[in-house]
């Protein structure tokens, strides 16, 4: 079984070496004439104002959490889909119950406005 993963390891090593080599070479070969203005962060030509790493909307956090939960759900769908044909109606009822329970949660977050970006 592991034999089929060996090529991936080789591929990974080759890709890492190629990417590292190009990046390193390019950084080494390129001209270097740094100046204070050139090295300051871009802000439409004016002097940067305030801290670049401010705080942001909590919605990003909520999206992250909901993503994990639904991702777990989808992770369960794949092994189910693979054996589905041998499960028949039993498999359908299993997944139907599962998805209906989760749909309750989905409707809840929709109703509470967790999916509305602007609220």
């Amino acid at each position, binding site marked *: *079984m*592991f034999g089929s*993963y060996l090529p991936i390891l080789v591929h990974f090593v080759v890709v890492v070496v190629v990417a590292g080599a190009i990046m390193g070479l390019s950084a080494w070969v390129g001209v270097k004439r740094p100046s204070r203005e050139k090295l300051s962060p871009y802000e439409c030509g004016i002097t940067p104002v305030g*801290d670049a*790493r*401010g*705080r*942001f909307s*909590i*919605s*990003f*956090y*909520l999206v*992250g*959490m*909901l*993503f*994990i*939960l639904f*991702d*777990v*759900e989808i*992770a*369960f769908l*794949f*092994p*189910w889909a*693979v*054996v589905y044909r*041998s*499960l028949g109606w039993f*498999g359908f009822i*299993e997944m139907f*119950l*599962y998805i209906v*329970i*989760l749909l*309750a*949660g*989905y409707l*809840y*977050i929709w109703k*509470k*406005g*967790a999916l509305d970006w602007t609220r």
Partner: protein
Amino acid sequence: MAPLFYIFAVLAILAALSVVLQRTPVYSALSLIVVLCSLAVVYLLLGAEFLAVIQVIIYAGAIMVLFVLVIMLLNARQETPSDRSRLARWLGAPLLLVFLGELLFAVWERFPAATTRAAALPDAGPRAVGALLFRSYVLPFEVTSILILVAVLGAVVLAKKRL
């Protein structure tokens, strides 16, 4: 196979140490991703290929993304060392050694050297996992959905100021 196992096991341990020792939260998070990915390779070496990809998708690709997002959101910088309590300094190291010794002992007792071979299922591909999960462990699977439902409710309660 054996050298590969040692490479990734050592990598996992080193990265785990780096999770604890790094001062910058992003570095800790990155190290944790390395730990999770090396564990996935160890699963692969045991023949559990489905578990390995799911490990990467869920842990490294979903949960750690949330960690990184939170670090970005909170503008977390280098952490400052806390007021080191004397008690912790004197008690910490010996207690750690005792704990490690205990763990090592337990593993040694439970799995003598002769049996520490790959003990994974003969086939742990998606088909085997699916058959097991959706025939023998139907109830746990259905209960998972309730668990996720509760987590969804919890997430909304946490993040929404007004419900």
